[in-house]
């Protein structure tokens, strides 16, 4: 059962993994500068354009005829840093460190409230939050996520917090690994392994598997797409699917697909950082989980009107 469940998850992560591997395995080995490794005869990089590029038509000089090897030996003569001799090695070392830090090593971050919304349905009006943020560099980041919901006037029914290490594994996807703490409906901790990024056709995807402190495996896949109606008016379809590898009686969950949450939200970006929205959402319990709910006399699905805010800084 567990392996069967892992499969869709892996499939989902595939675009990222595929790109990534071609990159890493293929080239990790030789990241050293070619200038210093003139061992093999230079293999001029030949593109299909080289024979027909405009300059060839006019110039008597064929690019392809020139060697593309390392520079002559005298180019490696000292000093390593020319300015050291004039301004002192120490002053230059400090300036160099600063220079390198400010040309590619920027650390930054953001906090995004993806959904802060009221869900109006007949009988029970609920609220929901979905927040995430990160801080770090281009490749490695600290990521946190929090999601939860409850009924107005009632208590919080679900609340979780995730702390993850995010690592870029390809141009569009990050691998995320860390921990998740459920505060409601009961305190529970999980290990998290997932991927997040931008899938083909501009779908933002977040897929993760969770291993709880009771040994339960669950998973969650989310996707959303921003369809610009105008520069500021954006329609966002969104879907979230939850899965469980086993029955989890204390949460009324049966093995298999457990829950589907879909919705469309229409937001207006007064600023990129501030966009109120209206929407409609449909939620359904699935499979055995739905059966459990039905036996308990509960609704298994429902539609809600959504009013909310998307904001970040």
């Amino acid at each position, binding site marked *: 059962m567990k392996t069967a469940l892992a499969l869709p998850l892996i499939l989902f992560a595939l675009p990222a993994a595929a790109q990534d591997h071609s990159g890493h395995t293929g080239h990790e080995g030789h990241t050293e500068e070619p200038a210093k490794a003139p061992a093999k005869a230079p293999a001029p990089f030949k593109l299909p*354009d080289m024979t027909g590029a405009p300059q060839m038509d006019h110039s008597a000089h064929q690019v392809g005829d020139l060697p593309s090897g390392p520079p002559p030996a005298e180019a490696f003569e000292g000093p390593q840093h020319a300015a050291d001799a004039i301004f002192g090695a120490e002053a230059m070392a400090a300036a160099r460190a600063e220079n390198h830090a400010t040309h*590619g090593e920027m650390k930054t971050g953001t906090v995004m409230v993806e959904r802060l919304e009221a869900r109006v349905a007949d009988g029970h009006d609920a609220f929901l939050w979905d927040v995430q943020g990160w801080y770090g560099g281009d490749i490695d980041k600290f990521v946190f996520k929090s999601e939860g919901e409850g009924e107005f006037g009632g208590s919080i029914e679900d609340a979780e917090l995730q702390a993850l290490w995010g690592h*870029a594994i390809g141009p569009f996807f990050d691998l995320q690994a860390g921990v998740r703490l459920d505060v409601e409906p009961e305190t529970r901790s999980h290990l998290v392994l997932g991927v997040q990024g931008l899938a083909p056709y501009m779908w933002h995807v977040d897929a993760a598997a969770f291993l709880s402190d009771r040994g339960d495996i669950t998973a969650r896949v989310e996707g959303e797409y921003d369809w610009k109606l105008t520069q500021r008016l954006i329609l966002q379809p969104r879907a979230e699917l939850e899965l469980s590898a086993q029955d989890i009686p204390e949460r009324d969950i049966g093995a298999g697909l457990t829950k589907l949450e879909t919705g469309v939200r229409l937001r207006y970006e007064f600023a990129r950082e501030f966009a109120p929205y209206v929407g409609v959402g449909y939620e359904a319990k699935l499979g055995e989980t739905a059966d459990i709910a039905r036996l308990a006399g509960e609704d298994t699905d429902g539609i809600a009107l959504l009013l909310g805010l998307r904001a970040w800084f």
Partner: protein
Amino acid sequence: MNSSPLITRRNLIRSTVGLAAASAVPLPAWAKGQSLTHARQGFGEVSGERIALTVDSHHFGVGGRSGHAVAVNGTVPGPLVRLREGQNVRIDVTNRLAEDTSIHWHGLLLPFQFDGVPGVSFPGIKPGETFTYEFPIRQNGTYWWHSHSGLQEQEGHYGPLIIESATPDPRYDRDYVVLLSEFTPVHPHEIARKLKVGEHYYNYQMQTATEGEMSLEERLMWGRMRMNPRDISDVTGATYTFLINGHGPMDGLEYLFTPGERIRLRVINGSAMTFFNIRIPGVPMTVIAADGKDVEEFEVDEFQIGTAETYDVIVTPPDGSHALVAEAMDRSGMGVASLTSHKGHRAAPPPLREPVTLTMADMGMGSMEGGEGGHGGHGGHDGHGGMNHGSGDAMAGMDHGSMDHSMRDTSKLPDNVKVGPGLDMVAPMPVDRMDFPGLGLDKVDHRVLRYTDLKAKRPNPHRMPTRQLEIHLTGNMERYMWSFDGRKFSAVTDDPIRFAYDERVRVKLVNDTMMAHPIHLHGHFFELVNGAGMMNQPLKHTVVVQPGGTATFDVTANEPGDWAFHCHLLYHMHAGMMQTVTVRPFPKAGEGA
């Protein structure tokens, strides 16, 4: 509120516009404890053998936007540095900021230790310190200067630099500087952050359900590749006010002339991130110099100027008021001035044109833009035909799977290019795009400048390169990562690009991104391999490598030392698109190329 920054040959009337922007702006955090004065718009002039420049924090306001600025000698832009070919100059630069600063003399030939790049040529100028630059002036022409520390250039730390020719130039009667730049009240570090975290934060010209002419099929194809065909400029008029000599489009900047006069316009792109389309509707422009170096004269109606490039043109406008338009390449705004023979008359600028949409050619699909319009009228380049692997329509109809694969086929890269998250695309069939006039100018119905039009006026020494070098311009738009050969500057600290002293190298730049990058080599002029013939290849210090295309230059490395080499889009450089070029060994005293 009019101002006229008239420069006659020997004197310049200061353009001191008292902006009515005395609005009470609360002191920003970075300025606490200092009483900041407003920087004046426009610039004065400094000249002679001994020059003093002071860098300080100020407020600045233009076009309803106001905020912090780094001004030199109290103005934005900083003063015009006017020198004469053959003189020596000593320039004392005093830093009154709370952080390090520097000045790089853009396009000047000088000893490397005075080139002004902290960490490469010198340690930088610490707060409170004065650094003295001292060098002989070995050239003439139109150049500029700017900070090379942090992101100060965005904040106002730049200015024009003109070197008078040792011999008089009779080709013009009047001489004006047209210095293009941007102002934003947003701190540049915040802009850098927005570029990293926000998806196309400043782009309000995206294709939408109601905007853009692409078919659904094409849109799906771009979407599948996770690329945005309206990704023209990273930072736009959404936060920038475009400036000419420090004046916004509503400030009524005037260039006065008497009918019949020949006017030299020294157009300098001193912006941080913006390519401009320059035109004076109804007035043709004769291009006489590029990047400070004379070229065979030719006439155009419009030209695109990449960041950090300069072009000198001569115009002879008829009586009246003519709009001098500097339209941002993405058409999100423009800088405007009036070229007028009637003081106080403003010319009405034309409206902004439609936003630009990228094509297959910008993806590196070879010369694919034949489909809709293309560029007609240069028979000299029909040789492209062989690379035309199908019409645009055929490509759009191609199997999407193979298309997606071919947009990042890393097997097409040389071994030294590092493949990783920082590389989101490999141009599948990059071709030389020297004949491309710039995004959006390939479909206008008047004469535009192409690199293939440039021919050096004075013949260069004829010398064959002895080596070729290929450098890939790489990036990831979503993550806002930029690099050379897949490696950020921070990753190549002690692994420079090495040239032997006096070595002549042919350098081919391959743009594996869908943005145009203005690539600048410090301390040298290189020759564009543009079909002008070996003796007349135009000399430049900055070359725009068009999206998905290549550009090739020959350089004789005859300036020993360490030199910066980088994309002159400020936030691209900041993200890592930079390298050090070392030229060794130092020649022994008495030797020289």
